[in-house]
């Protein structure tokens, strides 16, 4: 994170990534991707791929590509807890998350996809609907560059609002640390998945949050609530990690139940690699559902 300008940083990331992309024969992520689905009774026979059937003696339904560009909305957590970091153990989570979003937006814009942005903490702070325009990327980068000054995260409340704001189906990239109670998380996420959005979650964590590698006893202050706790890290580490692992396991379970690919990254991980990992992920189940045959949807 030596480069202070977010646009420069995104560009550097994407260019590094693109250079690698040419060498790679695999393109995991493409709007041009075609798919066959096994025929099941009730499917419109007009979409059967007869040639394949003739060759393999199996019935496949031919899926048509969506001709429109991808509509991707980045939802970036601007709450106070994302400000943690910035020390020798790793960059700030917010910097990392914003750079990630900016890089991906840059990349998608280059592919002429429509990109939008929503920032939130307890509530939706900003919402830019996905568009493909000359200055859209500039606007998004500008907004991402503003310093997050939010308070506590209430992921669910923000997501509920966003669900009503995001109109057409598209890809939703959720960038947050997901360090908040998970009681209603599933139902909130289901608002998007049920609406057919392709939701992808990127959980940004600081290495210290992962291993709680503090040494000295100190007064620990919650960045969101301001609550103080006097702690000896050595004694608290074990219970912390237990609870942390349980939380992440619960989160993973929610993601998999909703068919959401989740990416857990720490701020020390190189962004290019994360981007690559992100793009290589197979389309989510929701997207499969979204690309139903036109005939069926017409029916």
């Amino acid at each position, binding site marked *: 994170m030596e480069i202070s300008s977010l646009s420069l940083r995104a560009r550097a990331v994407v260019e590094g990534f693109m250079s690698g992309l040419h060498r790679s024969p695999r393109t995991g992520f493409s709007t041009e991707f075609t798919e066959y689905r096994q025929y099941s009774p009730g499917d419109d026979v007009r979409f059967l791929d007869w040639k394949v059937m003739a060759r393999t003696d199996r019935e496949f339904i031919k899926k048509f590509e969506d001709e429109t560009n991808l509509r991707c909305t980045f939802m970036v957590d601007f709450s106070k807890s994302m400000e*943690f970091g910035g020390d020798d153990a790793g960059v700030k989570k917010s910097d990392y998350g914003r750079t990630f979003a900016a890089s991906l937006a840059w990349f998608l814009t280059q592919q002429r996809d429509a990109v939008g942005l929503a920032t939130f903490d307890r509530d939706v702070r900003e919402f830019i609907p996905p568009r493909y325009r000359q200055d859209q990327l500039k606007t998004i980068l500008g907004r991402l560059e503003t310093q997050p000054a939010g308070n506590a995260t209430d992921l669910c409340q923000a997501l509920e609002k966003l669900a009503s704001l995001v109109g057409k189906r598209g890809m939703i990239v959720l960038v947050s640390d997901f*360090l*908040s109670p998970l009681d209603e998380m599933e139902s909130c996420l289901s608002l998007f998945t049920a609406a057919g959005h392709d939701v992808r979650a990127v959980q940004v964590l600081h290495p210290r*949050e992962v291993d709680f590698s*503090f040494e*000295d006893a*100190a*007064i620990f202050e919650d960045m969101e609530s301001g609550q103080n706790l006097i702690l*000896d890290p050595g004694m608290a580490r074990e219970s912390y990690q237990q609870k942390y692992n349980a939380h992440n396991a619960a989160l993973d379970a929610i993601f998999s139940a909703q068919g959401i690919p989740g990416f857990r990254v720490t701020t020390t991980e190189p962004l290019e690699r994360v981007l690559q990992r992100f793009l290589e992920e197979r389309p989510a189940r929701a997207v499969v559902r979204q690309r139903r045959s036109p005939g069926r949807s017409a029916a």
Partner: protein
Amino acid sequence: MSFLTPLYLLGALGLAIPIILHLLHDRPKNKQAFGSLMFLERTTPPVDRKRRPTDLLLLLLRCLALLLLVFVFARPFINVEDPADASRRDRQWITVLLDRSASMQRGDLWAQAKDKVQTVLEQLGPNDRFSLIAYDDSTELLAEIKLWLGNSSGAKVNARLEGFAKPGFGGSNLGQALRFAGESTQETEPGPDEQPFARREIIVISDLQKGSHLGDVQDYEWPTGIRVKLEQIGEDDQGNAGIEQVASRVPWATAGTAPSFRISNSANGLGDELEFLAHTTAGETLSEKVHVPPGRSRVVELPGEWVGKSVERLSIRGDAVEFDNQFHFAQNRRQTVRIVYIGEDKPNDAEGSLFYLASAFQQSSTLDFHVEAISGKSTGPLPEADLFVIGDAVDDPLAQALGQAIEGGATALMVVQSPSQAANLGQWLGADGVVIRDIVSSDYALLQSLKLKHEVLKVFGDARFSDFTNLHFWKHRELQNLPDEGIDVLARFDSGPPAWVVARRGAGRLLVMASGWTPADSQLALSTKFIPLLYSILKPVLEDKTQSRQFVVGSEIDVTRFNNGQAGGGVTVIPPGDAAAAISVDTIFRPTATGLYTAKGSDWSETFGVNLTPDESRTEPIVMDQFKKLGLPMSAPAAAPTAIEAAKKTETHRREYWRWALAAVLLFVTLETVLAAKGSRTAEPVMT
């Protein structure tokens, strides 16, 4: 071990401060912001075990230093009897002021007071000086022992003390007594071979009642080095009620009022209902209930039916203390004032002078005015009178008698109404050629140049009454060729001639008015000045006749007052009681006991009452602040001489103790500083 100021031991509670600070020391000081505390639980921060022993030692030192500091402030001491000190006794001069006022008659106060004197005597050592002064209204030095020689000296003092079986009836002039004692203790300097006094103390043994007079100390600069100790005896827990006569302001001007008495009840009085009793000479007792709430006083008039019954004593009943409940009452006899008008006026003639003169003097409870008229042409003897008013020319035998009466001390008022009175005026003034001339004027005359400071006109001296401009004189006369000497012109007419003149002739006075008070002459008879003027002329006579017959114990009574200032060959005073011996008095008599006294001359006899001073009834104690305000250096009330000696002995030990403790504090603080400095060098850097 005891402590002089044990309250300071409470300071040991301050030990909590270093202990709390010590505990606080383990709290981490650095702050660590963290994304979310949702996975964290409170844990007990570990104690830095390496530093713990040092900390504990520091804590111990700090606590010890604090404890010792508290110890120093509490001033510990131990009583140690040192026989060597007893012989090294300092010489002291003790003066005892013993109250023998009437209020000491209460209960066993006198016995208590004597006991206190004995206690003081016991504390005297060899070579001490001792004075015993008794006081009431006056101050008397009862005994003076310059070198105390133990029992023999004590016997001397006791012999004098036994002479007073009982306190007297006097008031309490404590101020005068203190001043007397202060002066006598100050003035006497020890001789060259005498050991100087280490301590001079005046011990007041008294009930210190509120009625004591302290005024004499107020302007007295108290000598240095003399301390005053108050030994209060008796407690006024039941209150007291007292009785005194209310003196009327102008006794001869009160018409028809009975004598009145003030009954006061002290604030802590037993109840509010008292009995007011009258004892007659016939042995009859009359009583009446009087309601006086505690802390108040009430003026009670002698009931009408009692007045005629020759009451000799009044008393109150119903309070706790008896000594001041009697009031010996010598009733004023009604005196006759004789006024003789010499002239031809008819008593009912509203145009004449006599009519107004007779109307001006009204009867009162104490005075009976008797106005008599005789003709100026009368050849009979001149009747005795307190005031002669001459309204017409007087023929010779009478005029001569009048002149002699005036010379002999009579007061005459001559109203000049015609030129024919010139001869009389000249005769009485002892001047030839006095002429009276009628002034003829169409305008009225006014008075001017009034001598308001003259005793006759003094009554008009106040600015409210000094306006004479409403007094118009229609007719007046001019007195010519008046002698220059012996004449005082009190007022002049605005045209210049004298209007009112007073001439001293021998022992008497002759007042001359150049215009009368008849309606034809002036408005004087109808003005508000008339009656005050006549009373003012009569004032010396009236004052003589209405003199009070009530006195207080200790007052100086001029017995000749009962006989118009004439001793007349010696006066004998017969004190109350059947067995009392008569006392022969020249002029001044000073009663020492209460009761009804009789003063007897060769041809007269008067009874007068002597009572306690009303202040003695105020038995509640003086507020002690009052003594401090007067600047008296007070000794601690409980510090008897032996106690002072004991305190002196222990003082040296006590001092040693606190010094040692202070040294230990300093040692501990130094150690603590060294340890703390060492600890801070080896301490780990503070986390950030």
